[in-house]
């Protein structure tokens, strides 16, 4: 179960607070997966005390609302990512970035599908750059607004970025596995070096549009089965 409580001392109108939370949640808690199962109890609550000062933030005041909304989104994203890092049995923290779709929903749906594929997640545990499993999982989607054109799809594994948007200087170089539907020569040593990292990013370019989305997931290990095989109701 995912639970979260976020508190702030901003004075904010209830409607604006709900709007900010909806936005933040779509880009954080609703963009993570550990095992693909939705709980009966998932809840995120935001409480605003208004204790800092009397100036109320409302959606009508666009600039202040967006600044608050973005701060809330940043905190929510970090709290959501911590849940993935603590995923049962997880040994990898994986960012799935999908770009080049016609709509945000398409990018989100593709990222969600890859993030919940048991075969992709076991390959990540095995540190295998298995782009075939990635393509198979996204190719099964029927609910996209525009059908995938296999000749336009590119897949890369890249070292996870730090908070400043750069990769550590000693991290491996990005690994392009598929470019416009054509498999690229694979350097096993390079792939092994990159996939042995704890933090990995899978980058997909669908080649159809300008929209993008991110999802965060983890690998699927023996330990996950042990924990949940032992758990008793």
């Amino acid at each position: 179960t995912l639970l979260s409580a976020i508190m702030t001392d901003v004075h904010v109108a209830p409607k604006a607070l709900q709007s900010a939370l909806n936005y933040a949640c779509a880009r954080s808690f609703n963009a993570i997966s550990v095992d693909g199962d939705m709980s009966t109890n998932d809840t995120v609550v935001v409480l605003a005390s208004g204790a800092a000062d009397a100036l109320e933030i409302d959606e009508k005041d666009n600039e202040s609302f967006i600044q608050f909304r973005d701060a809330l989104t940043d905190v929510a994203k970090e709290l959501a990512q911590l849940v993935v890092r603590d995923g049962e049995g997880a040994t990898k923290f994986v960012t799935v970035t999908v770009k080049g779709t016609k709509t945000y929903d398409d990018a989100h749906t593709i990222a969600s599908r890859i993030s919940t594929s048991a075969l992709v997640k076991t390959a990540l545990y095995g540190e295998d750059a298995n782009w075939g499993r990635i393509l198979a999982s996204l190719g099964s989607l029927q609910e996209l607004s525009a059908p995938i054109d296999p000749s336009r799809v590119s897949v890369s594994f890249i070292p996870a970025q730090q908070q400043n948007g750069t990769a550590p200087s000693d991290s491996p170089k990005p690994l392009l596995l598929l470019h416009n539907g054509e498999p690229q020569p694979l350097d096993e040593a390079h792939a092994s070096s990159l996939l042995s990292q704890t933090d990995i990013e899978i980058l997909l370019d669908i080649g159809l549009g300008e929209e993008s989305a991110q999802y965060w997931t983890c690998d699927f290990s023996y330990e996950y089965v042990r924990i949940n095989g032992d758990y008793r109701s």
Partner: protein
Amino acid sequence: NLTFEMRPPPPKAHLHKTLPDSAFPKGFLLSGTHVGIKKSKSAEDLGLILTTSPAERTSAAAVFTQNSFAAAPVRVSANVLAARSGRGVRGVVVNSGCANAVTGQKGEEDAWAMVRAAGEVGNAAVASTTSSSPAGDNDEANMLVMSTGVIGVRLPIDKILSGIQALPSSLGSSPAHWDSVARAFLTTDTFPKLRARTFAVTHADGTQREYRLAGMSKGAGMIHPRMGASVPTATGLHA
């Protein structure tokens, strides 16, 4: 034939952060304690978060699971929030170790009992710690409730209600108080997830003010949320 050995999970100690008092938002009192829901005697399993501000100054929002078997605390919290239109919510009471999910009518009654008990102690605690009364809002149905843990088992509600009555004596706003509530959320998690930060907002009158945000989360398994602002209309009660 296994080609590799089982690996231990990566170390997570670095995920704890030391946070100064100044990073946490003003206007909150918190406490986490052990009341006997979890087997481990040292593990916090009940938490309370209260705002000390006047009711008209506070606001709340939430998103909830879209699972058709949405648990009693989910439905009750959505009900409280809707009834108050997001204004004047006094706080949140949370327990771990039992999800109070698929527990029928009794589960619903238990969730409401938690809301009322927490509302009562919350109103009293806030009135005693502030010079003015909490805006005259003594409504006891002004708390949200969250539960997590095993599904299909009833809450040990007597232990929980006794624990709620005792919580005011340990309320505070130090980083340790925030941490104790973050721990009261945990189930199979291996570390508490607590973050806080300051941020600036430029208001329409041109003034720039600094505010604070602090949040805690829990979760390790059964994680693939798709939450929305309302709960599914068909409740699992009839299935």
